């Protein structure tokens, strides 16, 4: 491919979006989709034979660590990892240093994101300093384009504050309050899921009820305020049930799950390797099954990575002293394919819905999530669903190495990613 071609055609792929599933070529011109159909002529060609051409993936939940922890990740390295993972937009969580509770900090993140190989969408804090007390300047942040408000990493514990945040957000079009649902009084001092493994290993646990109690409360607050609540990284069967019930009752809630919560269980912690430490923690087989069920029946709207880079020293510690979090951007698509599509939990289109157009809708990202039709911004990914590869931490584009999948053989990988008409990943290689 020449540098930044203004026009090219993605040839021979199977196009999957909200319009369906068909074999078609996609002509991209001037940053937008110009034509979709059989035998669209054009040059140069981006080969998509045997591949799926889909709207670019959208990740509602990444930690890019900038500002404050640029030795773990930067907006640029994180965005490159995202592009290699097929993502064309990521929502950057606000637990940076300083946190995204201030218009100037948000503006700086957005500015750094403008040259990144993936659209970087800033979230904003619900409360100042993510401390759970005073409201962050949500209106000012909203004016900069912030739509997802969250204190992620911390949960808004005070029900009165949460209610006020929801009511206030109701005046900001498209704003969504997103909760990290873990009651810190129940999870206090815990480092892994509380259950058979924590009891055996002597690692203090975080009970599943720490999540479910908060989800139940916030469902009631969403109903009270008639304002949507989005639940970040749900991990328990009980929480999935509560969300399912809330949706049945017509309450405006959405939910995401992280690939590690449908791929791994608390049994991984038996090696005491903190690469498996994450909040909320890896749960049980029964929770994994419930999450899959929630994905299959639409209770869960989105798959989001909770990509959480940490420098090697941070994880070269005893389990209880290491920080929580694991990488996710470069493995999410393959895990979705391997754990959900392959065993028949989700059809390919439903899986892409969870990875692309539903999260795009939650975040209010009109230019992402397709459909792939003339006039739409060309934010696309081309994925090879058959290629086998092994996760080698040293070859990840993220600045950090804390993937829990080192050595794991995965099937399915992103071949090309197109951002606003520019091929930012070609044949699995980042172009910038």
């Amino acid at each position, binding site marked *: 491919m020449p540098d930044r071609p203004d026009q090219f055609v993605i040839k021979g792929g199977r196009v999957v979006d909200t319009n369906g599933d068909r074999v078609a070529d996609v002509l991209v011109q001037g940053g937008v989709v110009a034509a979709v159909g059989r035998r669209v002529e054009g040059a140069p060609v981006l080969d998509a034979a045997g591949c799926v051409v889909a709207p670019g993936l959208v990740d509602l939940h990444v930690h890019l660590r900038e500002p404050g922890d640029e030795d773990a990740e930067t907006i640029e390295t994180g965005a490159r990892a995202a592009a290699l993972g097929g993502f064309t937009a990521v929502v950057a969580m606000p637990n940076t240093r300083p946190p995204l509770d201030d218009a100037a900090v948000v503006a700086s993140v957005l500015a750094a994101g403008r040259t990144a190989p993936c659209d970087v969408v800033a979230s904003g804090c619900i409360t100042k300093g993510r401390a759970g007390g005073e409201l962050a300047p949500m209106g000012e942040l909203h004016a900069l384009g912030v739509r997802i408000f969250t204190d992620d990493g911390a949960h808004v514990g005070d029900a009165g504050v949460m209610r006020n945040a929801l009511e206030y957000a109701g005046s900001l079009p498209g704003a969504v309050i997103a909760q990290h649902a873990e009651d810190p009084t129940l999870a206090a001092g815990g480092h892994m899921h509380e259950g058979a493994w924590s*009891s*055996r*290993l*002597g*690692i203090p646990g975080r009970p599943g009820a720490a999540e479910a109690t908060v989800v139940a409360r916030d469902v009631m607050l969403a109903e009270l305020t008639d304002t949507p609540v989005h639940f970040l990284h749900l991990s328990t069967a009980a929480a999935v049930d509560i969300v399912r019930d809330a949706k049945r009752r017509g309450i405006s809630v959405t939910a995401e799950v992280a690939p590690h919560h449908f791929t791994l269980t608390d049994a991984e912690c038996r090696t005491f390797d903190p690469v498996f430490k994450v909040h909320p923690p890896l749960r049980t087989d029964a929770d994994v099954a419930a999450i899959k069920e929630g994905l299959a029946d639409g209770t869960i709207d989105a798959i989001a990575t909770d990509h959480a880079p940490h420098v090697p020293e941070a994880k070269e510690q005893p*389990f209880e002293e290491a920080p929580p979090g694991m990488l996710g951007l470069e493995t999410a698509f393959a895990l979705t394919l391997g754990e959900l599509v392959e065993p028949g939990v989700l059809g390919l289109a439903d899986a892409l819905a969870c990875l692309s157009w539903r999260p795009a809708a939650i975040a209010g990202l009109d230019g992402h999530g397709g459909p792939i039709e003339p006039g739409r911004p060309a934010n696309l990914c081309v994925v090879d669903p058959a290629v086998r590869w092994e996760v080698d931490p040293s070859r990840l584009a993220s600045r950090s190495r804390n993937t829990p999948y080192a050595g794991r053989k995965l099937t399915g990988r992103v071949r090309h990613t197109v951002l606003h008409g520019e091929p930012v990943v070609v044949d699995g290689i980042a172009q910038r």
Partner: protein
Amino acid sequence: MNDLLSIDDLGPAGIDELLALSESFVEVTRRDIPKIPALRGKTIVTLFYEDSTRTRLSFETAAKRLTADTMSFTAASSAVGKGESLLDTVRTIEAMGVDAMVVRHQCAGAPHRIASWIDAAVVNAGDGRHEHPTQALLDLLTLRRRLGSDAFRGLRVGIVGDVRHSRVARSGVKAFDAVGADVTVIGPPTLLPESLDGWPARATTDLDDALPELDVVYLLRIQRERLGSALLPSLREYTSRYGLTAERAARLKPDTVVMHPGPMNRGVEIAAEVADGPASIITEQVANGVAVRMAVLWSLLGSGAPVA
């Protein structure tokens, strides 16, 4: 065996072998000059991130009686205060040339992490709430010397108290089970493990109901900090429900023995007259600690030549 991290590393045969070896070291410790050159030229470091007197002294005495050189590291008087990480600390110590590291750490699995980082043998001297394997071994040795080597099968052992937070209990349950004993953990629900799935033990919250059946009453230390976290109403209430008072001790079978890993809270989990009474083998536990640790160190570092 390269390391001793957990009772799981041993299995029944390994435990048996170590106990037999320990018996021969008990004999050594009773000599006029209780010292043999079995580990001459070997260097053993005790790396203690938590306060401990008896375990550290016991390991250091064991090493010295085997003629090993010893070094002692405690977190309080080290570069840890200057922010040195565990990884850097152990690599620095290893670079000085050590053959074994005896590790006590406040985090479960810290010795497992260290074992994955260094070539020297690692002995777990207590990791968080997880395990304290040499304590379990010295408990078995003490029982075997008191009751005979064929007494374990079917022996009814009650481990009483703060099982949830206890590394002594986690190693003890596995070790007692491995030698054929029948283990019950006893305590208030807030101090029993959240899950007993995979534990080779039964559980009850009723000490008085379990007590008359027990051959061994193993009491765990109650820590005052459990009150602050709302796990117990008061120490007095704990004593009234779970303490081995003189009245309760009077209801034990005549040959039942009483054990405690120390340090004891006299008047809380155990009455002074019970601790010092004829059923108590608590002092023997401490005495046997040195022999067991000699056996562990010799198994890990010894040449394989006859012991003494």
